[in-house]
């Protein structure tokens, strides 16, 4: 019969803690353990080693802190509040707030957000607190402006609903422009690859069947002791996209392991340091703790596709990613991480020291994090207009053989600004605008082929309006042909068409 999940058949938590107290527990970082298994074999390694420590230091948007400010005189029931101009959630008790990592400053925008405020609190810096209220019999005050430091607060508790992704997609960009994403800066035409996660040091990957991690697991969080308080949001362990929810005392955390950050063009976040001790309680746990970068696989995803279902170009291992070169479509491309492997190593090392010193004991979880969870998408049940709902289906196009005058006539006759140019089978080969024609006349050009733009930005009839209007503004154009699978022109969509939609 198969052993139960979480079975302590190799050693119990009590036995491990007894060794820690005596100072003779054998603790290795996950990186060291990978090497130890390679040199000494799995059997010896799991017999000798009690605990494997892990670490990761990366951008974790699912982070934030509960703060209790204490009561002012006269008291206030804060309805809205800001810390250094960053709005905090006030839908809870009178002087409690939740400051989220991705909330952005109303005055400084992308440069400063909740993550930065959290870092400055740990640095014990003064933070401006501003709040508004509607005034009640019990809470008469209607506004307050003051400064606080973390030491003034009754509680400052980091509660992160989604941290420490087991692994993450690697990212690249097929489009012809630079993309600024939560996966960092992605150069055009598969110009680079970025990735996140610590691979063989990744806390959740090292117990990928979730046999030791659960509610009450004591961990390293932001430089202090913290706890796992359950599965994280969007937890999907069966695909190695497990996440955890964690909490810890912000007052004890260190700014080095909790850093506010900005991803250019995307927004603010918080880099969080997380380290989890994995007790080698049974053979399966020891097996997963020994998995090297060469066997940790993820998808290389094209972030040039602005969709929920971004295509995977290929599978790639963390070993290949960490080598700094990844082959994409037979081209060798530079790869670099977004999360700090240097800090991940340090965190695993610090946690190892804490355990060796006897100051950190392991805890048996009250309930394990589930090892299966379905992740469902958000369906848009209200009908949202698509290109086919706004486009002009009457096709007015020119052939390449037309001279400028007949092209100009077409534009005038139909009162349009964009003229697609098609071949005999109505396939798109170029486009001219009324401006192109005016310019061509000024420069004394005669033929359409000299004037037309050959690389045409197009739309598909099923494209969402938001995507198309973003494309129009990105390329600074006012219209584009709508084409089908065979590149046949089936209509035109312009900024005017989209504007009409909003006027209705």
């Amino acid at each position, binding site marked *: 019969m198969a052993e139960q999940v979480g079975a302590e058949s190799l050693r119990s938590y009590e036995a491990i803690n007894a060794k820690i107290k005596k100072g003779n527990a054998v603790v290795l970082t996950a990186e060291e353990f990978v090497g130890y298994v390679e040199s000494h074999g799995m059997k010896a390694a799991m017999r000798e080693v009690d605990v494997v420590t892990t670490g990761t*230091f*990366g*951008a974790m948007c699912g982070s934030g802190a509960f703060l209790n400010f204490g009561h002012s005189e006269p008291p206030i029931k804060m309805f809205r509040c800001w810390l250094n101009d960053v709005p905090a959630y006030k839908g809870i008790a009178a002087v409690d707030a939740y400051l989220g990592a991705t909330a952005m400053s109303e005055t400084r925008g992308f440069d400063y957000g909740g993550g930065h405020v959290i870092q400055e609190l740990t640095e014990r810096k003064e933070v401006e607190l501003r709040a508004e209220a509607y005034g009640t019999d019990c809470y008469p005050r209607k506004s307050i402006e003051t400064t606080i430091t973390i030491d003034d607060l009754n509680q400052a508790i980091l509660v992160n609903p989604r941290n420490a992704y087991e692994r993450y997609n690697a990212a690249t960009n097929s489009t012809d422009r*630079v993309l*600024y994403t939560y996966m*960092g*800066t*992605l*150069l055009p035409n598969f*110009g*680079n*690859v*970025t990735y996140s996660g610590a691979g063989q040091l990744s806390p959740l990957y090292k117990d990928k069947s979730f046999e030791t991690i659960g509610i009450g697991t004591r961990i390293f969080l932001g430089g202090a002791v913290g706890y796992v308080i359950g599965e994280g949001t969007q937890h999907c362990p069966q695909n190695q996209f497990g996440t955890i929810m964690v909490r810890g005392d912000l007052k004890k955390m260190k700014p080095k392991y909790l*850093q*506010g*950050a*900005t*991803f*250019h*063009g995307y927004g603010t*976040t918080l*880099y969080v340091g997380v380290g989890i001790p994995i007790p080698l309680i049974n053979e399966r746990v020891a097996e997963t703790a020994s998995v090297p970068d060469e066997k940790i696989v993820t998808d290389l995803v094209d972030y040039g596709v602005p969709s929920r279902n971004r295509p995977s170009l290929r599978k790639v291992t963390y070993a290949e990613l960490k080598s*700094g070169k990844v082959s994409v479509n037979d081209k060798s*491309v*530079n*790869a*670099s*991480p*977004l*999360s*700090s*492997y*240097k*800090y991940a*190593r340090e965190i695993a090392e610090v946690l190892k020291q804490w355990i060796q010193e006897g100051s950190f004991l392991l805890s048996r979880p009250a309930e394990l994090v589930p090892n299966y969870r379905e992740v469902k998408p958000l369906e848009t049940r209200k009908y949202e207009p698509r290109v086919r709902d706004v486009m002009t289906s009457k096709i007015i196009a020119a052939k390449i053989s037309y001279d400028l005058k007949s092209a100009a006539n077409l534009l005038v006759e139909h009162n349009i600004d964009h003229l697609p140019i098609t071949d005999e089978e109505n396939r798109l080969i170029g486009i001219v605008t009324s401006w192109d024609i005016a310019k061509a006349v000024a420069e004394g050009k005669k033929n359409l082929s000299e004037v037309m733009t050959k690389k045409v930005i197009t739309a598909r009839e099923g494209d969402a309006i938001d995507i198309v209007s973003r494309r129009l503004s990105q390329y600074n154009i006012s219209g584009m042909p709508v084409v089908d699978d065979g590149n046949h022109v089936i209509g035109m969509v312009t900024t005017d068409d989209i504007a009409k939609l909003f006027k209705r």
Partner: protein
Amino acid sequence: MTDLKLKLVYRHETTSKPILSETVLKTRIPINILDAKVTPSAGEMIVDVPASGDKLKEVISSFQVSAVIVKEITPTLEFDLDKCTSCGACVSPCPVQCIKQKKDWTIEFDEVKCVQCGICVDACPVKAIAFL
């Protein structure tokens, strides 16, 4: 020999002339184009000149005679290694690969190769890279 980087600004009238090629032929210095862009009003190039002393002066005056504005590029990017977390977000976006991670993952910046495009300044999540 020390390489020197120059920024060459061409006015609209001179963008169509082969001034760089003529300079290479005349001085026999293998000038390398690192970056070039042409806008409706001017052209701008960043070049690497593997020369010094009189040879360098000869290259510079060859451009100046043809009405190209020449500016020497001195290092202007600064990496604040106290702020830097060695995450690597600046490394692969660099178009000339002048930022590398060492074996211990700390950042190494080769200012000689840098063309000061500034993409790393934006890419750094903790604002550890700045123009001086």
